[in-house]
């Protein structure tokens, strides 16, 4: 359970999912108070029009459902599958458009009472992501070069919400403190499919120095495969943990590290991953090997502070490396005031 203080710091989107996931029943939710009718004629007429449209669409929906039942009965039709998907799409479209203009639905959506069981709310959340959040996310991902560094640019389909105990990644790329991220986060992927699909969830740090090769390497800090997710179960839990969570530990002497959480769909179902080496992890070849398709991304940044030393000592139980630029020999001055020899006599 989050403290009151913590809730205030969470963004509205995160707040909505919080409510959605846990506290819908426990917190006293305000009920919708419809504006008084018979005061403003325009409002009354608007309500009438909306109600008419709703009625019409529901009558159409009934017809579509009858047609659906008929198509389901007909077994020997070669186009049955196509017809079914088209009719189902039409039915969902009708349901969404019938409810979309309802003042109460709009009010509930705006006040964070989102019910992902309802097609209309799913539609609204998806539209909000596509219209508003996606461009911001992509901007951050491209500006901070997460995309070419870890994997190619892709089209995220839904929002990834990362919540650490009392802190959440509201916007991709914010700075967190290493002390705040010691325990594993609650990751939720706000997807829109009713059926359960399997995903791979991983956390990558692409900024670990590789001293041998004099370059950077990727380190996989967390790897879960076969995580079942659906629109009513967006929180990452269960599945097979290949690499248990290692707290982010940006090394001393390095610049900021981008801790990236990737959500990858497993289109061909369950996958078997033998043990993987977390150091020198290659995300691109991993994705190719298991034929995964990236669906969501989020990341935060961290720099070194004293907590990292504690993580090294207590959790990793390693000697903490300290990085820095190699000392540069002065070209011109050897001892005090004396110029070094340009040519050495061998």
């Amino acid at each position, binding site marked *: 359970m989050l403290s009151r203080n913590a809730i205030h710091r969470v963004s509205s989107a995160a707040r909505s999912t919080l409510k959605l996931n846990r506290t819908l029943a426990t917190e006293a939710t305000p009920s919708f108070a419809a504006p008084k009718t018979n*005061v*403003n*004629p*325009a409002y*009354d*007429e*608007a309500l*009438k*029009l909306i109600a008419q449209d709703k009625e019409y669409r529901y009558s159409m929906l009934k017809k579509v459902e009858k047609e659906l039942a008929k198509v389901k009965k007909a077994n020997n039709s070669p186009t049955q599958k196509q017809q079914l998907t088209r009719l189902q799409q039409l039915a969902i479209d009708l349901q969404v458009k019938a409810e979309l203009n309802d003042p109460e639905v709009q009010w509930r959506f705006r006040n964070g009472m989102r019910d992902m069981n309802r097609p209309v709310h799913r539609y609204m959340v998806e539209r909000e992501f596509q219209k508003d959040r996606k461009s911001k996310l992509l901007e951050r991902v491209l500006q901070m070069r997460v995309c070419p560094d870890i994997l190619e640019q892709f089209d995220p389909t839904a929002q990834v919400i990362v919540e650490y105990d009392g802190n959440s990644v509201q916007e991709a790329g914010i700075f967190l403190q290493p002390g705040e991220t010691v325990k594993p986060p609650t990751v939720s992927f706000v997807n829109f499919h009713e059926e359960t699909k399997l995903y791979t969830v991983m956390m990558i740090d692409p900024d670990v120095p590789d001293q041998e090769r004099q370059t950077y390497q990727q380190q996989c800090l967390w790897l879960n495969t076969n995580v079942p997710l659906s629109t009513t179960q967006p929180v990452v839990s269960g599945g097979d943990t290949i690499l248990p969570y290692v707290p982010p530990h940006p090394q001393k002497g390095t610049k900021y590290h981008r801790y990236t959480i990737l959500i990858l769909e497993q289109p061909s179902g369950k996958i078997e991953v033998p043990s993987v080496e977390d150091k020198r992890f290659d995300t691109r070849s991993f994705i190719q090997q298991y034929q995964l398709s990236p669906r969501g991304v989020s990341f935060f940044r961290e720099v070194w502070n004293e907590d990292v030393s504690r993580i090294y000592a207590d959790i990793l139980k390693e000697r903490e490396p300290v990085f820095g630029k190699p000392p540069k020999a002065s070209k011109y001055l050897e001892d005090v005031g004396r110029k070094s020899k340009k040519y050495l006599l061998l």
Partner: protein
Amino acid sequence: MIARTLPRMLGKGAHLSRSFATSIQARAPLVSSNYRIASGIVLSRTPQITRDSTPFEKAYFDYSEKLERQSAIPLPADFYFKKGSLAERRWKEDEAARMKAMADPKLSLSEAVKETQVKQEDADVTTQMNKFETGSRLSEADKKNDIKSLNRALQRTLYLIVKKPRDQHAWQFPQGAVEEGEYLHDAAERELEEECGKNMDVWFVGRQPVGHYAYKFPEDHVAKYPGATGAKVFFMKAHVFAGQCNPDNKEVVDFAWVTKDELPNYVSPEYFNAVKDMLSDL
């Protein structure tokens, strides 16, 4: 090649049909695969006035007008009106009525002003004389339900239908057989003039038909006039801008201007089904 020669051919055809218009019986009707080809005319009078706004539209316009006024820059009345003038007094009356309407959501701004203006006009003789005259949205023909008048149903599109001297399928759009060597649009123009007289200002929209209708002749008709078992009617679209239909009382004995909704009262269901899609709803 065809494209270049056709206009010339067409010109010739038009010329021929015009010269033969005086001697109608000179030519045989065109028959193709046992169907006589006919050209029908959908003569329409477009809506003369805007349609009535729905209750929601009206309420929405009033609402947005008030919202607009709330955010508008106030009029510097001293700049526009001379102190103590009639114009200033009137404007002040209007303004007071508007302020009253702003407080009452059920009263619209334009209606409030209209009321004061009526009062002002009653009081003033000069304004009565200079009053701008407008026609009524509901015409006399509507009240009398005169289906021959073109002043009726001003919000709707009217179509001309004519009555042939027979019992069955008497009412239909004006139509006539296309003659050998004649084109559809020529035949349409000729037929309209023959059946409905010259006193109409008509514009034919194009040369392409907007719809068609095929039917079989009754058997006794076929026995009497062999050569064709049915007819194919291609409808040509036209607009009327002035004038009135004068039936020739030979081929056509009566006429009416009707809307799409009224058409089923006159024609058979098959005929209506064949033509309904090419007519405007409003």
